[in-house]
């Protein structure tokens, strides 16, 4: 057999095989077709695609499927916010409803200057490791921000940074997914409504005198804030003030009265 004949036979044989396989693929493709809800695909396209899991579903695909089925509300994605909710509600044909944007807030204002140091920390550069050993990092305060940036490493939106020894949230970038709050070994990060202006930037449950010895910016539990509050929105429990965000009217009286200046506004929380 000459070389050219062998080549031609090979080409023909391959063409026949390819044709037969093609027919089989078309046939099986039709036979075992999976029906995908067109809505699900459309919803998935609206979602931001970070796969951050803040909604509680396994990634954006999971949430899209749940919304398309009607298991999840259309405004479930905290990252996309109102804009995404509107688009999805158009696809699903329901009201978007109002959504409150939420952001992370770090309940500590003990910067390098304000919080007094106790020891040197030499070890693994993560808050979890520092919190697991006696003394919890360099600061005297045992409840405050350790400043080693476990929260920074998990944030997908570049919204939290260590500035001057404590974590600071950039409210414009934060989407309130809560990942930082879940890794903080000190449980210092709270997810609060974005419209909330005032918040207590301390979590120390020590008595006033002990707190003062540890940090210049600690809540001493003096209850001055509770006295000036008009509608009982602020309470002192375990030597630390708590604001009820549902009833707070953002008057700012507590912040102006606070002797330790731990009730701070959102602007102060961002740039100390």
């Amino acid at each position, binding site marked *: 057999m000459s070389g050219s004949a062998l080549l031609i036979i090979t080409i023909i044989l391959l063409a026949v095989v390819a044709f037969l396989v093609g027919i089989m693929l078309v046939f099986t493709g039709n036979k075992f077709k999976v029906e995908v809800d067109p809505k699900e695909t459309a919803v998935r396209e609206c979602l931001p695609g970070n796969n951050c899991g803040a909604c509680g579903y396994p990634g954006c695909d999971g949430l899209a499927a749940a919304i398309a089925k009607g298991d999840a509300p259309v405004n479930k994605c905290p990252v996309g916010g109102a804009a995404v909710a509107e688009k999805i509600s158009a696809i699903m044909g329901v009201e978007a409803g109002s959504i409150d944007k939420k952001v992370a807030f770090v309940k500590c204002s003990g910067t390098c200057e304000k919080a007094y140091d*106790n*020891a040197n920390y*030499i070890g*693994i550069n993560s808050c979890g*490791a520092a919190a*697991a*050993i*006696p*003394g919890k990092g360099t600061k005297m305060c045992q409840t405050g921000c350790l400043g080693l940036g476990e929260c920074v490493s998990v944030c997908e939106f570049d919204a939290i940074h260590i500035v001057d020894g404590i974590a600071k949230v950039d409210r414009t970038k934060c989407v309130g997914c809560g990942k930082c709050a879940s890794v903080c070994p000190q449980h210092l990060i709270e997810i609060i409504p974005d419209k909330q202006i005032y918040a207590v930037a301390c979590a120390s449950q*020590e008595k006033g005198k002990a707190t003062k010895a540890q940090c210049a910016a600690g809540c001493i539990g003096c209850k001055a804030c509770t006295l000036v509050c008009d509608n009982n929105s602020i309470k002192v429990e375990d030597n630390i003030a708590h604001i009820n965000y549902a009833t707070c009217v953002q008057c700012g009286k507590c912040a102006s009265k606070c002797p330790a200046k731990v009730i701070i506004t959102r602007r102060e929380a961002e740039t100390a």
Partner: protein
Amino acid sequence: MGIYSFRGGVHPKGYKELTADKPLVEYLPKGELVFPLSQHLGKPAIPVVKRNDLVKVGQLIAKADGFISANIHSSVSGKVKIIEHRPNNAGIMGESIVIINDGEYTPFEGVGEKTDYERLTPREIIDKVKEAGIVGLGGAGFPTYVKLMPQKPEDIRWIVANGAECEPGITCDDRLMQENPEQIVEGLKIVLRIFPTAKAVIAIETNKPKAIESMRRAVGNDPRFEILELKVKYPQGGERNLVHAVSGQYMESGALPASLGVIVDNVATLAAIYKAVALNTPLYERGLTVTGDGASNPGNYIVKFGTLASEFVNDDEGLKPGTKKIILGGPMMGVAIPNTDVPLEKRNNALTCFLEDDVEKAQQKLTNCIRCGKCIRVCPLGLYPQMMAEAAEKKDYERFIKVHGLDCIQCGTCNYACPAKRPLTQLFKQMKPAAMMYQRAKAAKEGKK
């Protein structure tokens, strides 16, 4: 029995010569005493005294809460100043009883009264051990009476007195074995009354010939006793190694020594059992080694619980100049303390002061893992520290549990051997409680389903 060894382990320098010849000296506290309510594994105790109450030496000041918990007794006579939050030596603020010492050491009623333990039933002995608040003095602080109540007491074949003291620098158990061997032997005899068919084994590393000699003399030719010589290797005093030494079998993952018919107690714990049962004296003092190049007065002390660490590491002018690090416990397993105003308690066997911080030096040399497998070769439990560390760095609990990370005893052997100076044990220390919590949460979830 020949000289026993185990698979793996490392040979850190002993550093025992600094204190090995210093006898145990009773130390009388100068300042106020702080008794944290959590000095043991398990639930914190509940205080039974109030502010301004007068207490005496050996008086119960806090009682055990639940099965895994322990009584706490006053180590001095004096007045309760206050019950408030104070830092314990793990740096955690916790409810503590503060007592002002009157310096008279008046004993509480009945303390020191001799009892003939031969007449006591096993149940009465266990009750006495429980009442005395005895916990494992080797370091873990597990309530001893729980150990003495295995599910099948008739299956217990060996009672091991752990005198290995493999941790570098610590000599207080060595001194106890030399100075008061009869206390340990009597303690073992008391435990043998609970387990009449068992044999007592006293396990000592061969670098303590004087202790071996003195224990031999104290035992005499009692056929129920045996001295087991151990090779000098770290961590020779690990419970699992001792169980293997006497039973010849390896403990399964998650098993207790009792499953192989062994009960392991530290020699100091046995001496405490003797004092509690025969002398009616609860646990309120223990041996402590103060060592290291940064210690102003290195030596072995009998410390009353509640004494602040600062009394041992400071001389008249405070800390020895240049002291960089103070470790509670030995250099292998101990933890650094942030300040010296912390009370010493049941679990503390040593204070090691360093003029140089080796962790800092190691951190400067830190490089990536090259998978050389040294950590695997030295791990006394046969674990894979390298794989555990990989899982721990990623916070992959599932994987950490799968590679038996929960079996880690945090002995620090892998750290010691790692040529890349990886902080392995530190990672496991952080990971273990988190993984246990994850496991419990998962079990609870599955239970609900």
